[in-house]
């Protein structure tokens, strides 16, 4: 596996290198904006989330540990975390921005997993997601990508709240077991 250029950019950013940080932003901001936008659903809010997250990434670049996760994984977890803190949804009937993931999940073609398999940290996760029951996988992917709460998930999947909670819980437990064996 080739060296991830983002590792060097993060390391240089940790040293206070603004040019490297700008490159890091250029190479990662579109993906991370997509992550934030999908969860908070409001462009102005997603922009604020992104700004906050990059300030955080700049300040915390020195905490990044290459052995634990790829840079993109580390940054995405920061953006997701912040997005989930900010999300205030008046209407749980959220609009599907692009439909891509939902359709992929619904038709069980697992389109989104193809991207996952190509990423450094994603191959094992993709394999383990495939091992889940379809409804568990669907619930987890929806919750993750759209930042849906249990009740939003239940509304979206038109299932009782308790049922959806069980899918998520069992799916996550299986996922962990599977990843632990990887």
């Amino acid at each position: 596996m080739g060296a991830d250029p983002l590792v060097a950019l993060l390391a240089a950013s940790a040293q206070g290198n603004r040019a490297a940080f700008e490159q890091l932003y250029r190479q990662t901001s579109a993906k991370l904006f997509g992550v934030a936008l999908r969860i908070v659903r409001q462009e102005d809010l997603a922009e604020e989330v992104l700004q906050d997250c990059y300030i955080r990434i700049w300040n915390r670049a020195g905490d990044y540990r290459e052995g634990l996760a790829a840079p993109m994984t580390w940054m995405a977890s920061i953006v997701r975390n912040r997005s989930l803190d900010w999300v205030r949804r008046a209407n749980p009937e959220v609009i599907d921005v692009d439909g891509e993931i939902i359709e992929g999940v619904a038709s069980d073609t697992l389109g989104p997993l193809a991207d996952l398999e190509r990423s450094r940290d994603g191959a094992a996760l993709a394999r383990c997601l495939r091992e889940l029951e379809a409804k568990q996988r669907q619930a987890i992917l929806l919750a993750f990508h759209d930042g849906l709460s249990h009740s939003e998930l239940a509304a979206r999947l038109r299932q009782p709240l308790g049922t959806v909670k069980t899918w998520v819980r069992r799916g996550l437990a299986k996922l962990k077991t599977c990843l632990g064996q990887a």
Partner: protein
Amino acid sequence: MDLARNAELRERLAAEFALGTLRGRARQRLRRWIAEEPALAKAVRDWELRLAPMAAAAVAVQPPARVWRTIEERLGRERARPGGIWANLAFWRNLGLVASGVAAGLIAAIIAAPPRPSPAPQPVVVRVPSNEMAASYLAVLSDQKTQKPMLIVSAGRSSNELWVKTLDPAIQVPDRSLELWALPPGQPPKSLGVIPRAEKMTALKLVAAADQALGDVPALAVSLEPSGGSPTGAPTGPVLYTGPFLKYW
């Protein structure tokens, strides 16, 4: 609730928190527990990293240019980062450059940088062997935003070599080149070459002796360029470091 003793519940809450299904008050409450219980904090971190690769499937959306501008402004307002080699030199006014000669003892040149309205000015002392840095022409190039000195450039008056010392090797950026420019008055910038990476002190070849090639140049600059240098012969990327080019004789 004693999460420390209930490993199963801890694991479940950590997973739900990382997945994002906990919302509002439930999320805030768990956040407080995370702050109090290291084992829970670790479980959450593990789960975040376990699930975050899924973000690779997110559809990329180009953020508007104002997002980066705002980030830059916010970074500009912050003080220089603590830690790193400039930790105790965050603000500086005078720069003392001490060149230690091989036989001739010490030559010291003090460059008075323009006064800056900053607390506790401290001198920055850079030790450079004089055989590598003949102090005839001298420039200290600083980061335009943080004012941190990043490179020292020098040349003897009759020398065809321009010495470049990188004060912080981390300024090199993967897949890009740093290019040094002379800024003659009333003329376009003149390339002095790409600053080689992975070497702290390097010489760039001048087209003529420094007196002829650079005698009328009051300032130098470094820009970020595509790998190998500007394809056009003029700076194409952002100017990162600049400084006056001074004569010492």
